[in-house]
């Protein structure tokens, strides 16, 4: 594994396969929390943080507890004849890991940095049901990423989400004052804006790296 391949993963998950605008993950917070730039930044950082940790945790769980391989811990623990295949549990295991992780992060931040907690706190519970988090962990699995690759992918997917979210918040603050047809006000115009941004991001698919 080289730095170059990590760089490619980062660029492609921020721009080319942007989580919001081309993979359609995390749409609910994208529309819900993009009314103000401040809250968009808070939500964005919380997502980057949890995504990176979730990628790390689920990779470890997957490789040492679920995957049928000689490194599977249950294999050693119960000295079974052959490694157990627990992959069918992945959805349940991952969502529980994410829920526990979010709760844990919330408690740690509350203890260590009350200031940060006040600005991120309200977004953390929302993150459990953010499909981008579960999405990134399942994509790591499908794409067969290594430990480091998974972390880079999780981190840059979060950055891509934050980028789209902050851009959207900037536009929506201006839309407040724009003359828009009555029926399109609020959420409909936000979707149409997202469509236009998605067209712009489609341009990145022409990007050649490496």
């Amino acid at each position: 594994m080289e730095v170059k391949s990590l760089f490619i993963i980062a660029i492609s998950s921020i721009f080319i396969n942007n989580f919001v605008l081309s993979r359609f993950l995390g749409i609910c917070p994208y529309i819900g929390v993009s009314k103000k730039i401040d809250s968009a930044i808070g939500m964005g950082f919380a997502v980057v943080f949890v995504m990176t940790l979730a990628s790390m945790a689920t990779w470890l769980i997957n490789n040492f507890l679920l995957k049928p391989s000689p490194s599977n811990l249950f294999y050693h623990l119960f000295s079974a004849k052959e490694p157990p295949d627990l992959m069918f549990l992945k959805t349940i295991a991952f969502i529980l890991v994410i829920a526990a992780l979010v709760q844990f992060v919330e408690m740690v931040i509350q203890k260590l940095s009350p200031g940060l907690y006040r600005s991120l706190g309200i977004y953390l519970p929302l993150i459990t049901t953010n499909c981008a988090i579960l999405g990134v962990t399942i994509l790591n699995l499908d794409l067969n990423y290594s430990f480091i690759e998974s972390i880079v992918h999780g981190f840059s997917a979060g950055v891509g989400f934050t980028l789209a979210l902050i851009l959207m918040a900037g536009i929506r603050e201006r839309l407040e004052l724009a003359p828009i047809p009555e029926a399109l006000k609020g959420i409909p115009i936000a979707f149409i804006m997202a469509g236009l941004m998605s067209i712009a991001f489609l341009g990145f698919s022409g990007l050649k790296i490496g």
Partner: protein
Amino acid sequence: MSMTKEFFKGFYAENPVFRLVLGLCPTLAVSNSVQNAIGMGAAATFVLVCSNVIISLIRNMVPKKIRIPIYIVVIATFVTIVDLAMAGFAPDLHKSLGIFVPLIVVNCIILGRAEAFAGKNSVFYSLLDGLGMGIGFMLALTLLGVTRELLGDGKLWGVPVFGSGFEPVLILILPPGAFLTLGLYLGFFNWIDKKTKK
């Protein structure tokens, strides 16, 4: 509380996609063809009905504070069943829905109904609510799927509809088309709502 009301509210009055604006990720991602839309709608309906029934059955045993993790485990179990069944019986559909099959777990419609309805109401009403909401979700997906596939690809259920002179609007089956179509439909339903209220 009438049975027909609980069943039909998901179709239009409280349609999960167009009225409550929930469950958007799968709505946008799999509505590029009618087949995908109906497949996803059926899978989500199955999970919604089963999880509503189970959650309604256990609602008096679940401690208030840890109800959300318990609901999620119930939902994740049914999603795993759907995932494995679909991979076995409809591998093509499973492949084209991709990661959105396991992601039914975090579909906010399902957890939303568990929290807002099944955790408070009897089994039979929860079943009706789940079925109605699921069908409403499927209708919304199908409406988007028909629009996008017809105009973006010139096909319906994979069969070409227009003659050779039709130039498909390619953008509609690409990601931006999903946002644009849903935005315009939301605006359209808002407009109808305003007209009928007057």
